[in-house]
């Protein structure tokens, strides 16, 4: 009885802490001119940019991250421990540092700068830079979740299929992928959410330009320079939009987004 109570108490405190600040924020949103601000081109641009860039980033991190996650989960190769560590590094990197690092890599004077310039590609301060920044910081989250999902599929199932004569491709398509899918989707949500909230690397690498690189987090931060009300409205819009997308995602896929939970 005490144990149940204790558990409930800890849960209540945790949920309270995690959702409290959000409630405090939403309580202060000036509802009066919400409609007017929603039509503000700054808001419309930032929202559009955020949504498009994060979807592109998500597609990129899934396209490039899934094979890697698969290899890390089900293959053995020399130096695997090193690859795992490298792939997780962006997570611990402060976003601003990530931004500078990206600049030193893809910027005009970066490692790849001259090579890119030779083929006429200029990345810094562009939409591509926004996507690169988001993908860099968010991909490790997806890869980590995807790796766990692939690794969780019981080896016996795959071996059973192999003994029945299924080739590698068939095993992947008919057994491994479907079973790992809930976890992959959960990882996709994590990756997308991280990309959506990305600020430090974006403002340093992609810069801040309304309509081109000013995503919602950047618009919110800049709004702090103008007035708090605009900031609150933008924050509320970002939160509710994300919430709607998450809800729609859950309904569409009809699954829970927890990796590994059936």
């Amino acid at each position, binding site marked *: 009885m005490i144990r149940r109570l204790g558990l409930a108490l800890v849960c209540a405190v945790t949920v309270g802490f995690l959702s409290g600040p959000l409630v405090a924020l939403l309580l202060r949103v000036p509802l009066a001119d919400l409609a007017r601000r929603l039509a503000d081109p700054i808001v419309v641009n930032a929202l559009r940019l955020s949504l498009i860039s994060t979807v592109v980033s998500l597609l990129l991190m899934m396209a490039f991250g899934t094979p890697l996650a698969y290899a890390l989960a089900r293959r053995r190769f020399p130096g695997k421990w090193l690859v795992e560590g490298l792939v997780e590094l962006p997570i611990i990197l402060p976003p601003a540092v990530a931004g500078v690092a990206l600049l030193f890599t893809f910027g005009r*004077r970066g490692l790849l700068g001259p090579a890119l310039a030779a083929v006429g590609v200029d990345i810094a301060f562009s939409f591509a830079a926004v996507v690169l920044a988001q993908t860099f910081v968010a991909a490790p989250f997806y890869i980590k979740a995807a790796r766990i999902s692939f690794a969780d599929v019981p080896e016996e199932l795959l071996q059973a299929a192999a003994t029945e004569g299924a080739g590698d491709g068939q095993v992947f398509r008919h057994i491994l992928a479907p079973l790992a899918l809930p976890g992959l989707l959960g990882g996709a949500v994590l990756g997308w959410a991280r990309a959506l909230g990305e600020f430090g690397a974006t403002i340093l690498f992609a*810069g801040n330009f309304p309509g081109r690189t000013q995503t919602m987090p950047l618009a919110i931060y800049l709004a702090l320079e103008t007035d708090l009300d605009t900031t609150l409205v933008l924050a509320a819009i970002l939160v509710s939009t994300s919430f709607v997308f998450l809800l729609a995602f859950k309904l569409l896929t009809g699954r829970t987004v927890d990796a590994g939970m059936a």
Partner: protein
Amino acid sequence: TPPAQFNFAGSQALLAQLKQGASADLFITADAPTMDAARTAGLVLSPQVLARNSLVVVLPSSNPGGVRTLADLARPGLKIVLAAPAVPVGSYTLQVLDKLAADAAYGPGFKAGVLANVVSQEENVRRVLTKVQLGEADAGIVYRTDARAPTAAGGTQTITILDIPPAANVTAVYYIAVLKGAVALQAASAFQTYALGPDGQAALGRFGFLPAGPTPTP
């Protein structure tokens, strides 16, 4: 007396913090509107002019954009980084561009030309300087004092200064005020007196600031 503690940020960010109840004794802003807003919000007692500053164009010393004169700034394809309009120096920059556009030597299309080259609007003037120092931008506009100060990226790349003619330049005015909720009221007032006095003004001058004095020299 305990040593002074400083909290540095853009004027607007500091004002937002003060409005939300952050406690402090002395407030210094980079422009009049922010100090006016502080006064309207009932936060400060009698603001005074602390110092003045003017703007300069900064270029990476390797000058990747080949900028030789101010007029070059409107050349298509150049990458210019400015402070966001909501930041004091960003708004001063727009005023300078207006003045230059009104000058026959530059023409009415000058401002539009320059703005078309802007690739990023930074929320912090130091970041403008950093991007120029890193060579990622061809030019930026910052305070004269920023152009002369030692900076974080200084080791990687130095900058050259392109002056803005005094007639087109804007004098940024810095204000200082003791806060109404000041705990260390005496210390704050004493600091303000020192800053406005000959020693304080001389110290500011060493960093490139112009004196508060009655007649602003650009």
